[in-house]
């Protein structure tokens, strides 16, 4: 029996091991997607590969990296040595898509395998058809870049140069990819060193007993929490649109006693587009919201995985068969699984007086993966994602508005890069990047607003560059509301061709989409140029709302209008709050009438839940 103080110290040391490894990863990496966007993950695993200490970053990797460790254990049984580091990125083995490369490392103590560390980053390039790894037009995984079910990149502390050089020979910008791999090797080295230091101080028996107890505790705590929640069944549905195809992720979540079953039966057949996800990706996708929403005060480890079952029929968009393309999975079906699980868990929490305050509408339901590539102003090949894709909007809670541009649940540490970083990396100039009016899902508590941005080529040796856009779901709002809250607005991607408009001073571009001249074409899937006087405009989703918009207090709607988060037209037609044109203040008399009319209208079938909004 370990004394509680020692137990607590070791528990916190395990957290610190992960934290220090993350810092190492960020400091060594030279890629904005890692050290500014925080598209990363580090966690610790038991000797058998089961999750010991879930870290930060994209949470859908916690369970997939566990499977990566287990897969390496099976593949290299009897041939795993101190100082080894293994690479795995095959989505049909454990990973989410080929670009998210796992480096997993055994941790030995006195020649015994005692634990694993694992990390991932989205590498600069993976040698796929399109730079950056997202391949909108891939027909199968064979065109989605280098893919390995497991290889030994570092052998007993020495990098296998033949493997490293072969890998780097297959990717664009090999110097940057080498830095990605080195950052992960360094990360695992730090985790290994700190774990061994911990074991040396407290002894292997004490540390092992603590780890076992932590897992047991987590399982018991989650089961106890589930028993406090009502038994029931909750459903959600997500639509994904790609070109002319509309796919569905259907989820029925059933809670009985201390178990949860996530059943995706009824979801669409696997897509011909690269939005599919594999079984491991779906499992990770449902755990990403489950960890923070149900286990916010519980250590994330194997104990909280045991009570959960997933049913994902093979051949569907949530469990595709090889060789279906999956390179867009992380922003495709995985994100829809995140959203679907978030809303069913939110509904379950809402059914409990005790836990209703933990429920949330969907946050940032739709990443907008735009990868720029081409020669930059420094005459180097530049590839990279617009990290604004991580700057999602918060969903409304049962007690507060969603946070404007508040991030996302599956990655609590996600960030977007400074505009200066992006303009230094790519030959572009931003016209604007700002919060998007009317994008937050209406409700008693409003969803947080998303953003809009636009940029043009600038100082580009080749006259501009190209970009890959994997913008699935532009046809559908995906940030579902809760308890009557409306969804947040959807994404949009507009290519403005030959924008020659100027502002009144004649020097710069207008900073509004509707003031830009030139043909405007929606572009949400494929590779497109950004040359000469072209501009790219992107806007992205707001968070889901909570509760009835007609119950949002007048003054809060007025404040939203004053802050530019809601337009007067939206306030009047959806919230029923009228603003006096002349004074800019609340028109109380007209507001009372509007709200009475909207309520009466709602009581008539097909009267409409709101009045149509006509933007000026």
């Amino acid at each position, binding site marked *: 029996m370990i004394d509680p103080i020692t137990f607590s110290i070791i528990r916190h040391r395990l957290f610190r091991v992960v934290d220090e490894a993350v810092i190492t990863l960020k400091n060594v990496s030279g890629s904005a997607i890692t050290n500014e966007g925080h598209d990363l993950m580090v966690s610790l695993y038991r000797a058998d590969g089961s999750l010991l200490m879930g870290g930060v970053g994209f949470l859908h990797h916690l369970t997939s990296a566990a499977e990566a460790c287990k897969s390496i254990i099976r593949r290299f049984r009897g041939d795993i040595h101190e100082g080894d580091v293994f690479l795995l990125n095959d989505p049909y083995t454990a990973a989410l898509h080929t670009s998210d490369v796992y480096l997993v490392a055994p941790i030995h103590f006195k020649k015994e395998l005692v634990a694993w560390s694992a990390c991932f980053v989205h590498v600069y390039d993976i040698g796929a058809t399109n730079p950056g790894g997202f391949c909108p037009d891939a027909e199968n995984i064979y065109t989605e870049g280098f893919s390995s079910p497991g290889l030994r990149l570092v052998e007993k502390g020495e990098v296998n140069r033949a493997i490293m050089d072969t890998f780097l020979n297959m990717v664009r910008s090999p110097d940057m990819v080498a830095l990605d791999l080195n950052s992960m090797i360094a990360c695992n080295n730090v985790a290994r060193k700190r774990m061994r230091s911990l074991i040396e101080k407290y002894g292997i028996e004490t540390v092992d007993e603590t780890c076992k107890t932590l897992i047991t505790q987590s399982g018991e705590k989650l089961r106890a929490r589930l028993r406090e929640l*009502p*038994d*029931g*069944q*909750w*459903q*959600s*549905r997500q*639509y994904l649109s790609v070109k002319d195809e*509309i796919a569905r992720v259907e989820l029925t979540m059933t809670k*009985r006693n201390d178990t949860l079953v996530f059943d995706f039966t009824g979801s669409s057949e696997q897509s011909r587009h690269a939005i599919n996800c594999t079984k491991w990706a779906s499992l990770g996708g449902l755990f990403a919201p489950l960890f923070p929403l149900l286990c916010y005060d519980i250590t994330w480890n194997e104990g909280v995985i045991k009570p959960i079952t997933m049913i994902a029929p093979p051949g569907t968009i949530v469990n595709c068969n090889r060789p279906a393309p999956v390179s867009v999975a992380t922003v495709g079906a995985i994100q829809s699984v995140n959203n679907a699980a978030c809303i069913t868990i939110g*509904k379950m929490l*809402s*059914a409990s*007086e005790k836990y*209703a305050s933990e*429920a949330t509408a969907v946050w940032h339901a739709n990443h907008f993966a735009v990868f720029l590539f081409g020669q930059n102003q420094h005459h180097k090949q530049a590839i990279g994602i617009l990290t604004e894709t991580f700057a999602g909007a918060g969903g409304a809670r*049962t007690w507060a508005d969603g946070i404007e541009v508040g991030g996302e649940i599956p990655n609590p540490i996600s960030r977007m890069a400074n505009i200066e970083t992006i303009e230094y990396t790519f030959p572009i100039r931003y016209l604007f990047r700002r919060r*998007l*009016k*009317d994008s937050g899902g209406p409700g008693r508590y409003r969803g947080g607003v998303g953003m809009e941005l636009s940029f043009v080529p600038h100082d580009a040796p080749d006259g501009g560059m190209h970009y890959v856009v994997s913008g699935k779901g532009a*046809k*559908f*709002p*995906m940030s*579902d*509301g*809760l*308890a*009557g*809250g*409306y*969804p947040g*607005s*959807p994404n*949009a991607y507009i290519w403005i061709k030959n924008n020659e408009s100027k502002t009144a001073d004649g020097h710069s571009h207008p900073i509004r989409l509707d003031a830009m001249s030139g043909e405007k074409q929606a572009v949400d899937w494929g590779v497109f140029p950004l040359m000469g006087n072209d501009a790219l405009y992107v*806007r992205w989703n*707001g968070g889901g709302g909570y*509760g*009835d918009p*007609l119950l949002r207090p007048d003054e809060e709607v007025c404040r939203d209008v004053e802050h530019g988060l809601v*337009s007067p*037209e*939206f306030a009047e*037609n959806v919230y029923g709050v009228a603003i006096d044109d002349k004074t800019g203040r609340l028109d109380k008399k007209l507001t009372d009438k509007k709200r009475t009319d909207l*309520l*009466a209208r*709602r*009581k*008539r*079938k*097909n*009267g*409409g*839940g*709101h009045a*149509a*909004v*006509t*933007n000026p």
Partner: protein
Amino acid sequence: MRLSQTLDLDGTSIVCGHCGHGLCDKDVNWKEKAILNETPMRTLGDPYSTDEQVLLRVFSCPNCGALLDTETAMKDDPFLHDKIFT
């Protein structure tokens, strides 16, 4: 007993959490008994400029008009069905 933030269970009946109006037996999908307003999502204005086929379903209490739930849907897709086991 609570079914959601907007609905309660009164014995074996699902009732509006706002006015107590009885909607249906607990085994029935209460949405069949609520007032449904189904409008194109794009009526919400510019940021919601979606296809005509994307609908916002608004379910309200037939008695007091309280907003009970919403769904993003396509025409003829079945209602989502949430239920509590008792």
